[in-house]
């Protein structure tokens, strides 16, 4: 059976070049970078080269990069580390309603432990208002965190403007760039950020590796204690093969980004337009055009439920994801779709296709061939579709 992976926002395959480089560091150059012998030193050199590659990709200095076990840990370190370091300056924090759980849950932990939290709303496209940010900033605000691009609906926030504002007001500005890295330009200076989170497994690097950019001069209280690795910001034997893989993945992404973004944008629009053409009662979630990640398609298919769609797609080899509650084990559907003002019943039928490096027009056309049949079959089973048609007929 044809297998079409369209869930690159969840995770990506490791690029073969990255994987084979990692192999060398797993089996041959396996030294501990803290060791002074040549096994250790060759690992250390490669580790520092990776730091340069990551830093270079986001316009940072190598010394400003702290490697972590992933985007989640980097988000936690940024939020908890800065909140603790600057607690004497103030206790007010700001974030948005559409952040990843790694940000939201972390802020909520702080909100339960002596901090005050403002969660900014978004409009129906998932976009933040710069004015709204401005109004939320108070004299005791110490930290503001806004994601660069949303993982569910692909909305790209006006981060550079928000950063300018934060800098004016002396508020530390953190950006979660996990989804934007490798898809649109991410530069810590252009975006006026103080801290920025990136994750390797979203850009064809290995899982279990991420990094936090921390602008020189920003203080952070560490979250992990031990051998004092990563300049005491993050103890633990360094995951050198993983980090080296991440570095290589950054180098490859940097070289390919412009071409890939153009190609992905084409596939994205072909898929989105094709769905709208072929299936009735479908709504596009998130902005269209330049304010949307080049690889994100998100639609709500009314009168059917997301998990059923995913299972049916999977049965014909198509891997996608959904904001349906049923895929997460919680009762509420995606907090992002709800924050955009979408009714629960429509949010349940949302479907995300996230395109990647390997995808082709044939992949897209295969989805366009399969999805209408699936939707039709599920709608035939759906008491809601039934009801809607009866009501429409009665009119």
């Amino acid at each position, binding site marked *: 059976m044809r297998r079409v992976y369209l869930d690159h926002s969840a995770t990506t395959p490791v690029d073969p070049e990255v994987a084979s480089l990692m192999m060398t560091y797993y089996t041959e150059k396996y030294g501990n970078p803290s060791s002074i012998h040549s096994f250790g030193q060759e690992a250390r050199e490669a580790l520092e080269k990776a730091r340069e590659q990551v830093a270079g990709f986001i316009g940072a200095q190598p010394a400003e990069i702290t490697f972590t076990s992933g985007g989640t840990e980097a988000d936690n370190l940024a939020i908890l580390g800065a909140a603790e370091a600057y607690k004497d300056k103030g206790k007010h924090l700001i974030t948005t309603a559409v952040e990843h759980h790694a940000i939201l849950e972390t802020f909520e932990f702080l909100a339960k432990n002596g901090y005050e939290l403002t969660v900014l709303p978004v409009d129906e496209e998932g976009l933040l208002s710069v004015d709204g940010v401005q109004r939320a900033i108070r004299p005791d605000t110490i930290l503001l965190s806004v994601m660069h691009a949303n993982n569910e609906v692909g909305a790209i926030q006006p981060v550079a403007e928000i950063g300018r504002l934060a800098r004016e007001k002396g508020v530390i500005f953190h950006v979660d760039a996990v989804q934007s890295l490798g898809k649109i330009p991410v530069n810590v200076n252009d975006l006026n950020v103080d801290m920025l989170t990136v994750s390797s497994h979203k850009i064809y690097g290995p899982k279990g590796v991420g990094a936090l950019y921390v602008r020189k001069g920003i203080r952070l209280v560490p979250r992990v204690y031990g051998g004092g690795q990563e300049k005491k910001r993050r103890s633990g034997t360094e995951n050198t093969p993983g980090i080296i893989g991440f570095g290589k993945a950054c180098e490859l992404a940097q070289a390919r980004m412009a071409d890939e973004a153009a190609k992905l944008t084409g596939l994205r629009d072909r898929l989105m337009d094709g769905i709208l053409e072929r299936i009735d009662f479908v709504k596009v979630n998130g902005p269209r055009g330049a304010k949307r990640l080049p690889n994100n398609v998100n639609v709500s298919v009314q*009168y059917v439920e*997301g998990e059923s769609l995913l299972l049916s797609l999977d049965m014909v080899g198509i891997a996608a994801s959904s904001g349906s509650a049923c895929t997460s084990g919680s009762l509420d559907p995606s907090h992002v779709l709800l924050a955009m003002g979408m009714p*629960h019943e429509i949010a349940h039928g949302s479907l995300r296709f996230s395109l990647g490096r390997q995808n082709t027009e044939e992949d897209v056309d295969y989805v366009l061939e399969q999805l209408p049949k699936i939707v039709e079959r599920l709608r035939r089973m759906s008491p809601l579709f039934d009801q809607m048609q009866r009501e429409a007929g009665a009119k």
Partner: protein
Amino acid sequence: MYTEKVMDHFTNPRNVGEIPDADGVGEVGNPKCGDIMRIYLDIEGDTIKDVKFKTFGCGAAVATSSMVTEMVKGKTITEALDISNAAVAEALGGLPPNKLHCSNLAADALHAAIKDYYDKQEKAKG
């Protein structure tokens, strides 16, 4: 995630559809929660002669709906009232823990349909 049996019932659901002028119709769930099951019964004497369903919901919701219609077809009402949500899940070889509460309501829908049947009988008598 799901057992083979669940996937079989999801892929080839038995008894999808409706029964015009059904003797009993039961519906549980609500679209906000992402699950609605509607069951139609055709009852002759004490026996469930035919049963159909329509479901909006996840794989478990569809599969339990399908399964419960199979379990109940040809059974007496008393036997049907004995079927629990847990029995449906068991007949499917189990469900993932997070599906046991919210998507496993097919027996409830069945019981609601039987109640509807009784209510209609009462009215007819009344």
